């Protein structure tokens, strides 16, 4: 299935799916890039920068795919930067401020595991351009899962402050964790067209099954069910708005300029 072969209803649904995925990667990339230069260990600093760059690279590739579909002369940068904050469509989990190292690891763990389930559900997508990009992204995400799992285990197993901070972060983020796999509007069209292999409720179950054994072994709480599903990707926080105004400040200083 090429872009031309997508039915209008499917196309609209694919656009939203791409926007959701790209915005998720963009915002977690912004957030993780705040560690560059100040992470707890020089070696870890280099690793976190790579993760942030990977996420931004994935966002860019997804926006490029979206730009080809929308076909209104906007490029990946225009889609990424030239929207008001309320036009962003990332999951509420990513609306939290960067926080401390434990919050970063907790957010990365919850997001990466959910993203892995989402990517797996797209691996055999009937829309070929997406299946091809997802195959590449999944190769890069393997490292992300390895890295974050190691850290989750380290924090959870170190008694005292590290574990206490991790639990506090999970308590803070937990209620929003399921927002990554929240149902998208008109996701039925995606399923009917074979773009995705299952509805989001199924993906949520797969995600919980995947993280259950690890959380149990490390005596960590399973995130609760999704609340306020309708605003899972809207009503963004003040933390996001202030991040957004920082991110767009240079670009918006002269919208006509090339940078």
């Amino acid at each position, binding site marked *: 299935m090429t872009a031309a072969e997508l039915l209008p209803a499917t196309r609209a649904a694919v656009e939203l799916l791409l926007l959701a995925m790209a915005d998720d990667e963009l915002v977690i990339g912004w957030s993780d890039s705040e560690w560059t230069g100040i992470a707890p260990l020089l070696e870890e600093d280099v690793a976190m920068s790579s993760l942030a760059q*990977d996420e931004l*690279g*994935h966002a*860019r*590739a997804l926006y490029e795919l979206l730009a080809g579909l929308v076909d209104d002369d906007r490029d990946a940068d225009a889609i990424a930067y030239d929207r008001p904050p309320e036009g962003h469509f990332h999951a509420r989990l990513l609306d939290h401020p960067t926080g401390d190292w434990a919050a970063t690891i907790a957010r990365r763990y919850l997001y990466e595991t959910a993203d892995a389930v989402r990517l797996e559900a797209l691996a055999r997508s009937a829309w070929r351009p997406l299946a091809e990009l997802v195959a*590449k*992204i999944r*190769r*890069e995400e*393997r*490292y992300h899962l*390895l890295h974050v799992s190691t850290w989750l285990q380290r924090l959870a197993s170190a008694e005292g402050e590290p574990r206490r901070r991790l639990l506090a972060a999970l308590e803070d983020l937990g209620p929003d964790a399921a927002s990554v796999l929240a149902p998208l509007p008109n996701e039925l069209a995606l399923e009917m067209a074979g773009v995705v292999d299952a509805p989001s409720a199924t993906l949520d179950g797969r995600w919980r099954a995947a993280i259950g054994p690890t959380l149990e072994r490390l005596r960590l709480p399973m995130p609760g069910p999704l609340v306020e599903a309708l605003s899972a990707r809207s009503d963004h926080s003040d933390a996001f708005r202030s991040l957004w105004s920082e991110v767009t400040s240079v670009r918006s200083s002269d919208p006509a300029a090339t940078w």
Partner: protein
Amino acid sequence: MTPALEPYEVFRQEKEGDPMRHGGSVMAPDPALALDYARELFGRRQESVRLWIVRRADIAVLEDPDLLQPPLDRSFKKPGGYVMRDKLAAARERAATEQAGE
């Protein structure tokens, strides 16, 4: 009972200041004999000024292409990722025009 032989990787320095480079490996029952054998296999022609041996079992390996050769664009990290020829030509031309106008 004869001690079990096991592989040791050999690193050699060809001349002072050079990095230690992998040369090959030897089988030996212990580090002392591994050094002797490293000398025989990688030093007997006076071709090395220093040898290191490491038990192969002590080496952790990473060779996963997903982790080492990730597929998406990384051109911004490489010199070939910056093509300035046209922009530079435009900047030079603009500078020359401005100078002529002064």
